C-alpha cells in the first residue's frame, strides 16, 4: 500500500474484482491516439496478413464482410487509467483470418492506417482472444474509435488494440511498436499493471 494522502477519502470507490489495479471505471468512451484521425474510404480499405516469408493474404471490405462474424462482450482497459466494462463489439475472429496462414513465427506487428504500429505475440491473437472489430454498440465503428475496423485484443491494455487496422505482419523476433518504443511496456497486461517499461 502506498503512503496515505492526507485528507483523501476517495469518492469514486470503483474498486471491484473485475477492475485491474490502478484503473477506474468510466461510462463514456475516451479517445486516445497520437495524431489526426485518418479517414479510410471503404472501397480503398484492405486488411492484409503477411507471413515471415512475405506471403500476403488480403481482404477487401466486401470480402471481409462475408467472413463469419462474432458478437463479443468484453472489458477494455486503457493505460491512461480508465476501464470500460461490458463493451459490445462485432468483428471477425483472428482464428478465422489466420486459418490459412502458414507461419512458424511467434511475434506479430500490427499496422494501422496513419502509420501506427504495435507488437503482439501471435498466441495473444489466437484461440478466441482477438478480433478485427467493425461495429461497436450496434453501430458502425466511428473513425475516432478506430473505424472502419480496429484490432480488439481486450486482455491487453487498449493501445494494443490498434485503431484503423490495416494488417498484421509476422515476425521471427519481437520488435517494439509505436508506444512500446516510447517507454510503454512491451506486453501490456493490465492485471499485472504493465504500463511502462520495467513494470
Amino acid at each position, binding site marked *: *500500500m*502506498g*503512503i*496515505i*494522502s*492526507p*485528507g*483523501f*477519502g*476517495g*469518492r*469514486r*470507490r470503483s*474498486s471491484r474484482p473485475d477492475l485491474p489495479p*490502478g484503473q*477506474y471505471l*468510466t461510462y*463514456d468512451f*475516451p*479517445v*486516445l*491516439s*497520437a*495524431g*489526426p*484521425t*485518418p479517414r479510410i474510404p471503404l472501397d480503398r480499405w484492405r486488411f492484409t496478413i503477411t507471413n515471415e516469408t512475405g506471403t500476403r493474404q488480403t481482404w477487401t471490405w466486401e470480402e471481409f464482410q462475408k467472413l463469419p462474424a462474432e458478437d463479443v462482450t468484453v472489458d477494455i482497459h486503457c493505460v*491512461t*487509467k*480508465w476501464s470500460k466494462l461490458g463493451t459490445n463489439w462485432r468483428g471477425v475472429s483472428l482464428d478465422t483470418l489466420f486459418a490459412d496462414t502458414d507461419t512458424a513465427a511467434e511475434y506479430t506487428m500490427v499496422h494501422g492506417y*496513419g*502509420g501506427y504500429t504495435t507488437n503482439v505475440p501471435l498466441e495473444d491473437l489466437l484461440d478466441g482472444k482477438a478480433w478485427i472489430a467493425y461495429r461497436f454498440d450496434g453501430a458502425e465503428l466511428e473513425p*475516432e474509435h478506430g473505424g472502419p475496423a480496429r484490432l480488439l485484443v481486450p486482455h491487453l491494455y487498449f493501445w494494443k488494440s490498434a485503431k484503423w487496422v490495416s494488417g498484421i505482419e509476422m515476425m521471427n523476433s519481437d520488435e*517494439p511498436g*509505436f*508506444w512500446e*518504443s*516510447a*517507454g510503454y511496456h512491451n506486453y501490456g497486461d493490465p492485471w499485472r499493471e504493465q*504500463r*511502462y*517499461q*520495467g*513494470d
Partner: protein
Amino acid sequence: MAGTAVSRRLIWRVATLVGARMETPTARTLVLQVPDWPGHLPGQHVDVRLTAPDGYSTQRSYSIASAWPGDGTIELTIQRLPDGEVSTYLTDIYRIGDPIELRGPVGGWFVWRTAQNSPVLLLGGGSGVAPLMAMIRARGAVRGRQPFRLIYSVRTPQDALFADELARRVRDDPGLDLRYVYTRKTPEAWPEPPRRIGVATVNTYGWPPEFEPDCFVCGPTSFVETAADILVALGHNSQKIKTERFGGTS
C-alpha cells in the same frame, strides 16, 4: 520514434507540495519537490497516486506544465472537474507540506526538444494548454529562437490559464505569438463573436503547411479531433501533427 526510448524503470516517488497558486477560480498549480527527479522533456506527463486511510487507491495522469531544470521543482496545473475525485482533492484539499506519490516522466512522443529548429504551432484547448506551456517555458529558458505560435481556445477570458505570464512572454519575445479563441464569451471589443476553433483561425494565426511546422494539439477530445482535422485539411503533414487528449473523466 528513434531515440525516444525510455529505458529506466519508472519508480514511485514521494513528492512534497512546496508551493501552490490559483491560475483561475477552478485551476490550481502545484509546485512539487520530487526527490531525485530525473528531469523531463516539455510535453511529458506524470502519474499521480492517491491512497485513502483504508487502502483504497486511485491514479491519474497529469501533464507537467514547467520546464526542467528551472528551480528543481516540477509544476502540475490541475483543472477542477465537477465530481472529479482526484482533481477536487488536488485543487481544494491538498496542502503545502503534504506528500503525494508520483512517477514519471511518462511519454516519449508528445514532446518538443529545444534542439528542434522547425517552427512550432501549438493548439491548446482549456487546460490542455499545460504541456504546451511547458514547451513555451522550455524555449524561453534556453532563449530559443524557434518561431512559436499558440492558438488557445478557452470558454471565457476568465478561464484562460497562465494569462499574465503568456501576455508578458508575448510582449518580451518577438518569436512568440498568441491568439485566443473564445467559445462562450469574449473580452470587451473583441473583433468576433464567441466561436469554436475553425479553419479560418488556424489558417490566419497558424503557420502555412509549407513551413513544415511541428504541430502539437492538446485538449478535450472534441477540440483535438476538430483541430487536428483542420490541420490536415489545410495541408499539414499528418506525421507532423502530434496530439494529446484527455477524456474529462476524472
